[in-house]
């Protein structure tokens, strides 16, 4: 909403303040003023000129040499506009003038001819092209002949004005009109509001004699008022009206249309003007459209309707799409002599639906959608009739043609001051509250210690007690509210164990050198299930914005790989990222997808890079595995996890493992398949993804201290040759089983394949530590258990002992 402060001052006197202070006060009271537009934009030295003579430039087809009277002086100006002609009153920027955008006007020579200034279009004065009357859209602006050369053109065009840009919240539709703004400013400044005085001399003829009205769709159209004005002369509006409309962001057309728009802005009541003769039937019937009925609207588009669209008809065919746009067939045009003014209340839902369906949003439809003031329907029609009489020479017929079933009684709200103060944490006296209501011009009485308020229909946003608390508080001043903290039962607060453990996981991964990434939940159908630990039907958006983000992900890895590729392409060659976030699996019984929190990571490039000491190491499987193990260790779950070789699509078949937590497969770790790496322009890249929810919901054993050993332990190293496909984990398992409770730990310290080891075999060396917490072990005891271990390895893993 654009509010011209000049226009505003005709309804409420705000002039004791600067425009800036006015804007600040309005903002603090609840309507955000987004900006102040100074329409004169610092322009100066721009006057009205009279073109006394105008001839073609001998050297240039498109230029004219004009002699212009700029008030007591005739000067030569070259003009390139197609519509320039002798006898016109025009806008002249004189040498020294500065136009918006910084253009400085200087004396110049154009193709050898002197030019002392510039004849301007409205656009050159900073008026948006879409607001310039169509007749002058492509050339200079021509002023009425009765203006005086030499006068200030800016004053004549009403450009010494500052316009407030309101950023209205959806509830404040009352401020979609100048009168509404005036009530608001009046309340803020404790000033009176001067309403327009409507008076005109009606003719003896009655509107009823000209027009018959039938409303069939009474629910969607509970009130319809039509007035008839005859003998109008359609012409350009007077300059002040055009100026006012342009300041409000509306393009002037002709006096009839301009008047309806002016009243729309003034009262917030949309009006429509029909050409009475073009209605042909002397009849208006408001009904729902028939299925597939069509109408050509004012913008010349043919629209096919449905049976819930409300239309105004002449009894035969639609002449307007109610509340949205008029029809071309009944449009006011130059030859119109009799006008029907329509002022109505159309149901918000009906207008919203139709406007949405036909894709038309107009100043009218946005107001109907929010519900116009039922008590302004008649006033607005009368105001328009008055202006048509004054500005278009019209003769207003007596009375109006009316259908009215609309409830116009004010809402009553009863409020106790305690209710207000208890909720605000304040002690505002009751008479102070009453005086705020007086400022708002809300009729209020104090009865038995309660405020009884009858809410004017212009404030449709005030419906419940809390709405009134807001009115009181915002006008009393939010700065007056004290600062306190909630009192009452104290609560311990804190993270749930799940949330605390999630933080532990994040902190650990960061300590391990990975940074936290944040990627999108929406993915392309191609990526949605890639690398997924578990797949389920994919959740698709009804109306995606792009294919790339059309479904919900079931794995985090694809987006992390994208992030890796992005970084590598920008020479961040070593990437270590992790993410925790939801994946979305199928649909649960309640209709929502199963959301499961996962943790995933990607590693590529160097892991250790300490160049000048010659230390540099690429990432490998065991770096990632160590990170995963460390994570489980932090959670006290390391003893319970196991890695088994796995085949996963998109992953290296020989370097991928499933991670088990007890009997549950909770994750996957490994190298990305070289083909996929190539596709994504990545070198050797490792990933992992785990079901974080399952992991965090698994309780670790209570942490309990084991005594620090008092007796020495004994170590024995063994070197084994086994088949290449024998896993280290399997050997360790055998050792543990055979070693029993005296075996404290097993550690792999060497792995060798190649020279001196048969093909298909590998050599592993373990260090075994034996220990009894109760006493010092004897040599014989160790020998006995150690031989058991060696036997078990020979028998169960076909291991040869290497000397």
């Amino acid at each position, binding site marked *: 909403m654009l509010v011209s402060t000049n226009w505003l001052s005709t309804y409420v006197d705000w002039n004791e303040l600067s425009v800036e202070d006015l804007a600040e006060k309005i903002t603090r*009271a*609840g309507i955000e003023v987004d900006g102040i537009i100074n329409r004169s934009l610092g322009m100066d030295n721009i006057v009205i000129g009279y073109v006394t003579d105008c001839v073609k430039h001998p050297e240039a087809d498109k230029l004219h040499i004009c002699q212009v009277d700029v008030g007591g002086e005739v000067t030569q100006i070259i003009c390139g506009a197609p519509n320039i002609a002798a006898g016109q009153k025009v806008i002249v920027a004189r040498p020294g003038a500065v136009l918006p955008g910084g253009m400085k006007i200087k004396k110049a020579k154009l193709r050898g001819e002197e030019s002392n200034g510039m004849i301007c279009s409205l656009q050159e004065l900073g008026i948006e092209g879409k607001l310039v009357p169509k007749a002058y859209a492509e050339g200079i602006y021509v002023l009425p002949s009765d203006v005086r050369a030499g006068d200030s053109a800016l004053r004549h065009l009403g450009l010494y004005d500052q316009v407030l840009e309101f950023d209205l919240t*959806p509830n*404040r539709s009352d401020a979609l009109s100048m009168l509404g703004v005036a009530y608001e400013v009046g309340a803020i400044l404790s000033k009176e509001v001067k309403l327009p005085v409507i008076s005109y001399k009606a003719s003896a003829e009655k509107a009823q004699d000209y027009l018959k009205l039938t409303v069939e769709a009474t629910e969607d159209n509970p009130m319809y008022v039509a007035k008839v004005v005859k003998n109008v002369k359609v012409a350009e509006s007077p300059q002040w009206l055009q100026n006012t409309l342009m300041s409000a962001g509306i393009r002037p057309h002709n006096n009839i249309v301009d008047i309806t728009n002016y009243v729309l802005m003034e009262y917030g009541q949309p009006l429509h003007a029909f050409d009475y003769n073009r209605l042909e039937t002397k009849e208006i019937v408001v009904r729902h459209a028939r299925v597939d009925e069509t109408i050509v609207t004012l913008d010349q588009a043919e629209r096919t309707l449905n049976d819930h669209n409300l239309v105004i008809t002449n009894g035969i065919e639609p002449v307007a799409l109610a509340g949205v746009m008029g029809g071309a067939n009944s449009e006011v045009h130059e030859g119109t002599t009799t006008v029907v003014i329509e002022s109505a209340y159309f149901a*918000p*839902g009906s207008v*919203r639906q139709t406007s949405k369906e036909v894709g038309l949003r107009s100043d009218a439809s946005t107001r109907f959608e*929010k519900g116009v003031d039922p008590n302004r329907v008649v006033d607005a029609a009368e105001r328009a009739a008055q202006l048509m009489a004054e500005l278009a020479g019209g003769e207003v017929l007596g009375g109006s043609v009316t259908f009215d079933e609309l409830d116009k009684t004010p809402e009553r709200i009863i409020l106790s001051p305690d209710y207000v103060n*208890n*909720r*605000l944490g304040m002690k505002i006296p009751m008479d102070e509250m009453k005086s705020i209501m007086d400022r708002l011009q809300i009729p209020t009485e104090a009865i038995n210690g309660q405020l009884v308020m009858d809410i004017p229909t212009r404030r449709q946003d005030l419906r*419940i007690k*809390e*709405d009134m608390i*807001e009115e009181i*508080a*915002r006008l009393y001043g*939010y*700065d007056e*509210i*004290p*600062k*306190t*903290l*909630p*009192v*009452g039962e104290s609560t311990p*607060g804190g*993270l*749930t164990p799940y*949330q605390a453990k999630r933080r532990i996981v*994040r902190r650990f*991964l*960061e*300590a*391990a*050198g990975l*940074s*936290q990434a*944040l*990627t*999108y*939940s*929406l993915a392309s159908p191609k990526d949605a299930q890639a690398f997924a630990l578990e797949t389920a039907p994919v*959740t698709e*958006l*009804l*109306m*995606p*914005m792009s294919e790339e*983000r059309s479904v919900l992900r079931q794995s985090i890895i694809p987006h992390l790989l994208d992030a890796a590729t992005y*970084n590598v392409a920008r020479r961040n060659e070593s*990437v270590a*990222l*992790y993410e925790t976030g939801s994946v*979305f699996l199928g649909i649960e019984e309640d*209709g*929502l997808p199963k*959301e499961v929190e996962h943790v995933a990571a990607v590693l590529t490039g160097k892991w250790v890079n300490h160049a*000048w000491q010659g230390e540099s190491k690429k990432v490998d499987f065991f770096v990632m595995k160590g990170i995963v193990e460390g994570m489980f260790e932090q959670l006290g779950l390391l003893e319970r996890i196991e890695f088994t070789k796995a085949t996963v699509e998109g992953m290296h078949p020989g370097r991928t493992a499933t991670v088990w937590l007890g009997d549950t497969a909770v994750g996957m770790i490994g190298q990305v398949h070289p083909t996929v790496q190539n596709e994504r322009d990545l070198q050797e890249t490792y990933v992992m993804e785990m079901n974080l929810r399952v992991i965090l919901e698994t309780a670790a054993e209570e942490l309990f201290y084991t005594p620090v050993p008092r007796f020495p332990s004994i170590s024995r190293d063994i070197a084994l040759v086994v088949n290449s496909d024998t896993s280290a984990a399997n050997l360790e398992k055998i050792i543990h089983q055979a070693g029993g409770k005296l075996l404290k730990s097993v550690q792999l310290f060497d792995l060798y394949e190649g020279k001196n080891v048969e093909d298909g075999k590998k050599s592993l060396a373990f260090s075994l530590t034996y220990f009894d917490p109760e006493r010092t072990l004897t040599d014989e005891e160790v020998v006995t258990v150690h031989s058991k271990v060696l036997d078990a390895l020979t028998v169960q893993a076909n291991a040869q002992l290497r000397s």
Partner: protein
Amino acid sequence: MKEQLHELKEQVMEKIKQSNTVKELNDVRVAYLGKKGPITDLLKGMGKLPAEERPKMGALVNEIRESVTEILEERKEVLEQAAIQEQLAKESIDVTLPGRPVELGNHHPLTRVVEEIEDFFISMGYEIAEGPEVEKDYYNFEALNLPKGHPARDMQDSFYITEDILLRTHTSPVQARTMEAKEGSAIKIICPGKVYRRDSDDATHSHQFTQIEGLVVGENIRMSDLKGTLDLLAKKLFGAEREIRLRPSFFPFTEPSVEMDISCFKCGGSGCNVCKKTGWIEILGAGMVHPNVLQMAGYNPEEVTGFAFGMGPERIAMLKYGVEDIRHFYTNDIRFISQFHRAEA
């Protein structure tokens, strides 16, 4: 013999002088003072001397031995010192060479903001509540006083999955769910999480972003409590000197509704480009829980009141760290993320 002795002494002294290492010095000691050395020999040969000369000679030999020992010790000290100096010189390094980096990752700047806010409210007795990112229309809109067809729904263009299921457009459905689950008892929660809107990604819009909201419900919760709470939050996030102001606003789920501005942390209120010359920066929206919302969740709005507030960690991070483009948060460029390495107390 006396001459012999003096000659010997001269000889030893010369040898000591020539010794350049502790080892050479030790060889000298063994050679002259050892059991097989010449001084021992001399002492042994003293028996041949007349009895009256013996004590005199004995004293002389001892004197020479002592002085040789003393000089040996002195020389040893010198040589040991020299050896240490030499070692130290050899071990000298260029202390300006780069250290071995401790490779730490760091959390995402948004997590940094979210956890700072979470921890602040945890210290005031709040719990952290979470909920699904794919929501029912009911919790996302209806339970928050946004019935179907409500004009304010235009404000939020949403990603629907079905007519009744959508990606949540704010974290407020977590509030609705919490209220429903608490069945009338008091609430103090913070709800952080990802949210989604049907926006094209540009410098100030992202189809996915984060929100963090708070909700307090109980008997006698007042708007002044909201103001006091927000004041502390503003000071925690942006410095103890920050002032706040509340401006009336509109949200369907609160009444009254406010927007909170903080005094500009860059210029302190005199006006700069961060605050667009106003001295104030808009930080969050808040209000008293709308009676309809309380009622739908099973609370009696005549007896129970509440306040709620919500903010965007992206906006806060952008302001705090001067980030100019929201897309940085989702590009995962290491050169961006790694700038948030530093710990902050």
